[in-house]
């Protein structure tokens, strides 16, 4: 929203602050000045201030609204021009208007003006509109636009000659096409609030008018209407049809229906004055549920509590009154605050507190005091620490961290995924080339690899810790680690690469690492060099050699599900330090198991049978296949805190030896 400094001064005659001071003040009270331009206006030097208007302040999408803010900040008052059109000036004839969509229409004010002389608007008006980036069209349209910027209320002017009967506000029931004032064809799908005559749709209410009743230089008789609608419907219609206009921008927000009458009079005054027409109908006023006066009880101590500094009751009252709130003291030492009808954003005592604090000024609140240190529970999830540990370990091992975007091309997941579940596809990404959420970290690391190869980097061992997304019993996401190593030779080095994986896993505290042939091999992997990474009997990741990326190098990739690691780590009883009094006694034994029997399960049962208080370690030292569909395993069992005799006795008992 732009505003001319001279126009603020017209509305706030006592204002002494300079244009730059006004811009700075508005910035501090919630309207960020993002442009400040010296301009020529009516042969004088002037300033055009560009401001960001808060989303909840539709009242400030107008010159008057912003002037009110300036007046409130400086403790001054706004002097609005008085409407010249008295109520008795309207003619006797009634307008033929019906409102079939009562639920969506808050207020309509309309009248008919005849005998107008349309044509180019005066030079000052054209120049003024150009300052606001609005192209002049003709006198009547330009006045309508001027009033919109000045008051914040949009209007619609319809050429009566082009109309077929009376007006009706209704919900569009069927699919049809309209042509807007700027000659754009819009396909309506139904459920839009429209203004119709007996034959045609004349406007998308609150959004844009139609070419059917557009004003021309020859227009003499018009119906002028201003309205306020149920804003959520206007917002929904504008979004769905993708039409954002000055009107829809305003009418999608909370606008004050009470202020509509004054804005309408202001518009009619200008039309009559500059267009030299006359009122030819009654004033139509549809307003079934007039707005009620709203009050809020404010405990003055709330203002100081929120600000963190003392703000006196007198200052609170003064500030609220400057903002046009009416304040009464109650017997309970609270304040009964009556709101101006246009301050629809104020609903709670906290909103009033903000009004006071922003005008008192945030710069009055000290920023040099750290809050007192109240100890609160640490709720940091363990996964956060795990990820930090993983990154630190890999950096120590000489790996570089990269980050990549998780949205990938639609074929990438087919090539890289090694886990169960379907791809999650976004519905409306503007980046149509990347619709899917990644199912493997390989995608980003491979992109980085190719970029590094193009740039002749000679050292490529990179990792990424990030999210993986899968549709598997609902939308799932988990943290994952991907590692990619590019070796500039053709020598097989998968075992060398796995050492990094193992160093990491051991650093984290996981020892029972083993590998099995990969159950699901991604299509970009060498299927003869792909393995699932196991911790005990749980698959936590995958390690594989990629299909050749160049003809003189080899690329390896590994991925580990960090959420699974965290689960496993949670089950580890971490008691690594102990007192050793006696020597460790290691005894060997042969056991014969069926080929199908899982040695890991056997060892686990053995550990439980001996017990942690006596077993130091157990491992397989030899495997020998027998010819009776059995395998002979030679185990070395190490006992601790037992002497030779005790260890041997226990050993014999456990393995049923004599």
């Amino acid at each position, binding site marked *: 929203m732009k505003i001319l400094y001279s126009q603020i001064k017209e509305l706030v005659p006592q204002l002494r602050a300079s244009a730059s001071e006004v811009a700075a003040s508005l910035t*501090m*009270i*919630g309207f*960020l*000045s993002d442009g*400040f331009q010296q301009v020529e206006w009516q042969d004088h030097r002037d300033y055009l201030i560009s401001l960001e208007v*808060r*989303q*909840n302040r*539709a009242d400030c999408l107008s010159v008057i609204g912003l002037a009110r803010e300036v007046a409130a900040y400086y403790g001054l008052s706004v002097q609005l021009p008085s409407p010249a059109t008295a109520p008795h000036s309207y003619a006797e004839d009634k307008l033929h208007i019906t409102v079939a969509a009562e639920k969506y229409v808050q207020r309509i004010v309309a009248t008919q003006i005849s005998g107008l002389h349309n044509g180019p608007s005066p030079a000052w008006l054209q120049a003024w509109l150009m300052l606001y980036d609005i192209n002049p069209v003709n006198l009547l349209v330009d006045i309508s636009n001027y009033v919109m910027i000045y008051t914040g209320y949009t209007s619609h002017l319809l050429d009566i000659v082009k109309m077929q009967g009376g007006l009706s506000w209704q919900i569009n029931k069927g699919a049809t096409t309209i042509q807007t004032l700027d000659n754009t064809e819009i396909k309506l799908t139904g459920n839009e609030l429209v203004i119709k005559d007996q034959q045609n749709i004349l406007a998308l209410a609150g959004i844009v008018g139609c070419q059917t009743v557009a004003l021309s230089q020859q227009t003499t008789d018009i119906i002028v209407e201003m309205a306020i609608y149920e804003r*959520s419907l206007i*917002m*929904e219609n504008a979004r769905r049809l993708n039409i954002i206009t000055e009107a829809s921008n305003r009418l999608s927000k909370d606008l004050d229906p009470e202020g509509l009458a004054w804005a309408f009079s202001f518009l009619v005054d200008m039309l009559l004055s500059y267009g030299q027409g006359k009122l030819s109908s009654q004033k139509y006023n549809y307003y079934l549920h007039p707005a009620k006066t709203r009050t809020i009880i404010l405990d003055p101590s709330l203002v100081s*509590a*929120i*600000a*963190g*500094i003392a703000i006196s009751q007198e200052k609170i009252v003064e500030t609220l009154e400057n903002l046009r709130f009416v304040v009464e003291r109650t017997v309970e030492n609270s304040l009964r605050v009556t709101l101006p009808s246009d301050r629809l954003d104020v609903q*709670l005592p*906290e*909103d009033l507190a*903000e009004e006071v*604090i*922003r005008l008192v000024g*945030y710069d009055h609140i*000290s*920023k*040099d*005091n*750290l*809050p007192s*240190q*109240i*100890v*609160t529970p640490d*709720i*940091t999830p363990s996964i*956060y620490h795990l990820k930090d540990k993983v990154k630190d370990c*890999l*950096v120590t091992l000489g790996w*570089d*961290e*990269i*980050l990549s*975007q*998780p949205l990938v091309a639609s074929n990438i997941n087919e090539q890289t995924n090694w886990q169960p579940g379907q791809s*999650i596809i*976004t519905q*409306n990404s*503007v*980046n149509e080339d990347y619709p899917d959420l990644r199912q493997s970290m390989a995608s*980003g690391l491979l*992109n*980085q690899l190719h*970029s590094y190869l193009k740039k002749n*980097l000679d*050292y490529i*061992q990179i990792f990424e810790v990030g999210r993986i997304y899968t549709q598997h019993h609902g*939308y799932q*996401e988990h943290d994952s680690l991907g590692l990619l190593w590019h070796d500039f030779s053709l020598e097989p080095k998968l075992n060398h690469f796995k050492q990094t994986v193992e160093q990491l896993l051991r650093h984290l505290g996981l020892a029972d690492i083993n590998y099995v042939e990969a159950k699901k091999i991604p299509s970009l992997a060498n299927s003869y060099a792909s393995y699932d990474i196991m911790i005990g009997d749980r698959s936590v990741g995958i390690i594989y050699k990629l299909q050749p990326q160049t003809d003189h190098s080899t690329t390896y990739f590994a991925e580990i599900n960090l959420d699974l690691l965290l689960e496993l780590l949670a089950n580890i009883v971490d008691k690594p330090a102990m007192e050793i009094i006696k020597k460790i006694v290691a005894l060997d034994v042969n056991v014969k198991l069926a080929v199908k029997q899982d040695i890991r399960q056997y060892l686990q049962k053995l550990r439980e049978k001996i017990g942690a208080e006596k077993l130091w370690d157990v491992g397989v030292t030899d495997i020998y296949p027998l010819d009776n569909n059995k395998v002979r395993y030679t185990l070395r069992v190490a006992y601790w805190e037992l002497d030779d005799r005790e260890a041997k006795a226990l050993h014999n008992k456990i393995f049923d030896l004599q």
Partner: protein
Amino acid sequence: MEAELKQLKEKLASASTAEAVALLWQKYLGKQGSIKLLVKALADLPEAEKKIRGPLLQSWYQEAQALFVAKQSALSQASLEDILQAQAETLDLSRPKIGHLHPLTQTIRLMNKIFIDLGYSIMEEREIETDEFCFQRLNVPADHPARDMQDTIYIQEPNVLLRTQTSSIEARVLANYKPPFKVVAPGRVYRNEKVNKSNHFIFHHYQGFVVLPTASLQDLFGTFNHLFKKMYGPDVVIRFRNKYYPEVEPGVGPDMQCFSCQGHGCPLCKGVGWIEMGGAGMIHPKVLSLAGIDSTKWRGYAFGLGLDRWVMAKYNITDIRTLLGGNLGYKYHQNENTL
């Protein structure tokens, strides 16, 4: 005997093995050794001659013994040297590569450290969010004008989406934990925007929120000031202005005086002298109520900072796309020039 001793010295000097020394011992000091026999012959001499020649012979004999001890010691030393030489190893003198954390990670860790020192927890949450936690619980119902502030990427419109803000983490924590708490939450967010040098559809936020029995704007400003001074040094100038966000009331816009022009206005700050650093404010009582927290007993503040531009400024990165792949590289042997 003097001649014998001289001869022994010469032969010992040329002996290079333990075996050769043993043979010489046998020849000179063994039972039938020449020097040994001379010493034994002393017993047959008259007493007077014994007194004259005895001490001299004895001293030569001891000298001969000492020569052998010294020679054996030298040979033993030489043998260890051979072993050590045979087991010699050389160091690979190639310089080790150093690994690197991503600039975003480094910045997040720096900020985390500041807040951990202030007693904050660090939280993470899902990126695939629901409309309820991304918007509704943050006082942004479906028809709220603020919906236009964020273009959402949907997974399943209208309810399942990629979070547009890390405030959704705040909504989750408010719903799942009982106050008091102090939390920071770095995270990735998504907006449906075209990608170019300055904009990406993925960027990074640093969210913070506090819910305590008492909390005020002064506490928020003090926290922010502390953060900025830690990040940018004690001379940094910041200001707070009123700004609208639906999830807070009052809302705050923290700005940092432009470090390029010191507030005079330049292209970097678009001529205004200040750089917007994010958003903040007192948590809206409706947000607390929607999470089942009694807003008459608890008060909180929240803030959100965009991380990408901080990182770009710090590392002289001119294209936001660099942060998520492609052009980001690391220089090795950083200490080469200092060695």
